[in-house]
């Protein structure tokens, strides 16, 4: 390791700073090499130029997104894009610091972009108010790094599959690092995904605990908790009473109705604790969120983006968890790739099936598997559809198969292809009898 402290001669002019001296802090790292830098690291203007001109994409302009835009802009990224489909809600203001009460109702991406550009000289932030699915590969391939501040597993899976899918092994420029952050209360995590070089999001899907769903029979017959009463109101009573109105967790009248129904049921069963706030929390599946945790996780993501863009220090390998509720606990470790990963690996997984299971039983077992997490899967055997959720006429034609035994439908060694409308992924399952 070199320790001779080789220092470049001072750069002659400030070509990249809108205000001379603006980048004093980060330039310390770009004008000098160090013992931990990548061997290819050459201090100087080339590094600065790449950092300042490369295009980076921030996905989500919420709690993490606001922090990410600030962090990236202050770390020297000057061409930042941001996608978000949401508008600003009053409950965002306890942490999404680029928004003010007067902004409530406006698109997050637009307001966040305006704010950062106003505050930091020389930075361009380009907002897109829409869904990630509105954009295709031609859009995503323009970016050097993609940083996700998302709040749903589905969106991350979609983004991960898209980024990994863009990789052409012949063309290194198609390898897009994806950095992903997430938080809940005092806890969070950040990770770096280098498609096919590190584990991808899909490789480690089983790490993410799914929301605990209450069994329908508990909700219907033996409620014990206030949550059971609220679920009864929203899952059973709402569709019955308002078949044509979609339940909106942000509509106070909807929540009020559910709260009233849940309270009645709770009183009937002598269950305590149904409140308005709990009702909204259960219906919207609200996850507690605070500014400080978002700051920690977003900063970690931005730090890795800076290191990736400049090679001034090694990139994190490859996952850091942060737990702040009992002392401070961090753990950085390397998540391993899964060879059979449906996104970045071979995709062919062996599954053991009981011969006497019906197709419906089999689909239920697939839905329960944490490493797959399917919602409405369609299944194809070689040459025929087993069960298709879409379109409706095909669903009708394949519905009869649901009650048939597996050994009537397929043979051992058959490959079943599984697709799900929510995911850009095809699973390949190799059938083995249990």
């Amino acid at each position: 390791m070199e320790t001779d402290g080789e220092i470049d001669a001072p750069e002659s002019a400030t070509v990249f700073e809108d205000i001379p001296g603006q980048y004093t802090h980060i330039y310390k790292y770009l004008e000098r090499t160090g013992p931990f830098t990548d061997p290819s690291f050459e201090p100087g203007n080339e590094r600065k130029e790449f950092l300042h001109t490369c295009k980076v994409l921030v996905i989500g302009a919420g709690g993490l997104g606001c922090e990410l835009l600030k962090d990236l802009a202050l770390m020297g990224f000057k061409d930042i894009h941001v996608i978000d489909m949401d508008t600003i809600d009053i409950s965002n203001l306890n942490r999404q610091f680029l928004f003010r009460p007067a902004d409530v109702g406006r698109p997050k991406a637009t307001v966040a972009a305006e704010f950062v550009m106003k505050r930091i000289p020389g930075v361009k932030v380009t907002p897109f108010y829409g869904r990630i699915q509105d954009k295709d590969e031609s859009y995503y391939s323009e970016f050097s790094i993609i940083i996700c501040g998302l709040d749903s597993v589905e969106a991350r899976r979609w983004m991960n599959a898209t980024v990994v899918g863009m990789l052409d092994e012949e063309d290194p420029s198609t390898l897009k690092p994806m950095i992903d952050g997430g938080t809940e209360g005092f806890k969070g995590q950040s990770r770096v995904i280098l498609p096919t070089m590190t584990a991808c999001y899909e490789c480690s899907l089983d790490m993410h605990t799914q929301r605990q769903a209450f069994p329908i029979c508990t909700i219907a017959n033996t409620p014990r908790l206030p949550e059971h009463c609220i679920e009864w109101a929203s899952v059973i009573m709402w569709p019955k009473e308002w078949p044509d109105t979609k339940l909106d967790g942000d509509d106070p009248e909807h929540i009020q109705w559910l709260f009233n129904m849940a309270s009645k049921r709770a009183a009937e069963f002598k269950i305590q604790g149904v409140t308005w706030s709990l009702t909204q929390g259960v219906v919207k599946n609200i996850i507690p969120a605070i500014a400080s945790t978002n700051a920690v996780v977003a900063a970690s993501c931005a730090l890795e983006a800076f290191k990736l863009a400049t090679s001034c220090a090694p990139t994190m390998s490859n996952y850091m968890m942060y737990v702040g509720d009992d002392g401070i606990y961090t753990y950085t470790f390397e998540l391993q790739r899964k060879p059979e990963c449906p996104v970045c690996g071979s995709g062919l997984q062996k599954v053991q099936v009981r011969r006497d299971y019906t197709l419906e039983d089999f689909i239920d077992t697939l839905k329960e598997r944490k490493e797959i997490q399917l919602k409405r899967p369609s299944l194809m055997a070689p040459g025929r559809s087993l069960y298709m959720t879409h379109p409706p006429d095909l669903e009708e034609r394949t519905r009869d198969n649901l009650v048939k035994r597996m050994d009537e439908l397929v043979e051992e060694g058959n490959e079943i292809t599984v697709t799900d409308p929510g995911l850009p992924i095809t699973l390949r399952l190799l059938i083995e009898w249990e």
Partner: protein
Amino acid sequence: MSHPPDKKQQRYDRQLRLWGAHGQAALESSHVLLINGNATGAEILKNLVLPGIASFTILDPSPVLPSDLGSNFFVDPEDIGKPRAKVVAERLREMNEDVAGEWVGESPSTLLSTNPSFFLRFHLVVLCNHNSPGPSSSASSTPPVGSSTPSPSTPTPQSTSGLLSEKEVAALEDLLWERNVPLVMVRSYGLAGMVRVGRKEHRVIDPHTPTPDLRLQTPFPALQALVDSVNLDALDDHARTGVPFVVILCKAMEKWKKENPTTPPTASALKKLVLAMSKDLNREENFVEASGQAYRACGKYEIPRTARNVLEDPECDKVGVVGAPPPHPFWIVARAVRDFAREEGAGYLPHPGSVPDMKADTGKYVELATIYRQKHLSDLASIRTRVASVVSQINSLPRSTSTSSIDSAPPPAVGETREWAGSVQVKDEEIERWCKNASQVVVKRYKRVKDELGEAGVEAGEPARHLSQPDSPFLHYVLLRAVDRFRDVHHRFPGVLADEVEPDIRLLKKQVQELLKGWGSQGVTVPDEYVHETVRCGAAELHAIAALIGGIASQECIKLITGQYVPVVDTFVFDGIKSVGGVYEL
């Protein structure tokens, strides 16, 4: 509770779900001092202003420099030359109109010697002893613009005027220590950073680490009556599936005792017995659940260790003693709880009143929940009586002749009831919170920085132990300490000038060696590449590190202010080169 939340509740909804109205009230009555409004300090305050502290004050003699534009989000180009404290305070306030913000443009060092009482006006003090990277090569010709700095000695980019020396830090900590005001020391330096918490005594009633309290070993009379009212053999198949596991386990214990009067069951033996009691494990999920919980019924009940430490704390013994200073309400309740457990609880703490969900029919579950709830309420009533009697006893004691030093403490935040205000009072709300969380209560006591700075305080083996692990983040702690000594000796930070990296590596190495020698840590070293990397950064404050360390520090502040969740003991160090963190008790 039965109406839609008001505007404020909506705004704070996502955090109220963590620390509730009690934690929020504590935040909303807290006054925070930040020493140095650099990037790290501004990030910390950002994360405290957003959730709604009452007020903050920034103490910072520096003007806004061009380099602040590339690290601190709360300045913009037109602010260059203006007092940084003022600019940052104003911009932070824009984020939350309910928060008041003030600024003082004086040198913390001067203020500490001329007006130390200034520092006693706050509930929490955050010290961001800042770094000054000096001019980058490209900016060396740009002097700060403007002349509105409040300090007579206009800082230059190399100035370290906002800094406190090691001795001054120790003096500040002494000052706060006596009033039990927490001091959070934060540092972002290049790719490294640290957060250190210091407080004489930090009491946590609600750390949010609940464990179920089911009383399976020794059911109290009402629970026993419920168990007796169930005859498993007489129930039909459907009714059997509705029996809560608590009842099943009590039944299993009775059965075991009848068959093995002298030997208590092991968890696995009881598990087996429970499974054997089921008629059909496929149907009777509650029996399966009971078998999984069997370990809870085995062994002798013991008060959890941290709670036991609180009850056995000398502060508990002092409550009500003639001549002792008036106790904090926390200790009065702790004493009442201890006496309750010893005298009437048969070793048990007051019941928290909650019960986890379990597979059961509604009627039996609600009956069970009600029984626990009533047990809680009767325990609570007993604690209330005990507290009242202790309080009246204390208030009847002759007053200590010297006025308690706590009289001049800052106005109490909600989480921190006034320690002495004429007569002792304990809020009923505090007694309730205590009883709901009695098995979780925690008291943390910290060491003073000066004990470590005096070198004798560090156990000789400790740094060596941390350093013996390759690439330990603790290396950065040693280096940060060495950097401060470097600064005290050379009046600048290592590597701030482009042509002095090589010599500075040697000079910093020397400081590291002396530091380790002072600690008595012979035979360990800091690898050269870490020294080199520290000099390389030239005291830069990278925004990503400032935001990360600032975020962690602000979480600690929230825990210290609300008295909920558990703050770190005592130092967190982050290595941004490898993105690895570590916690060290110094």
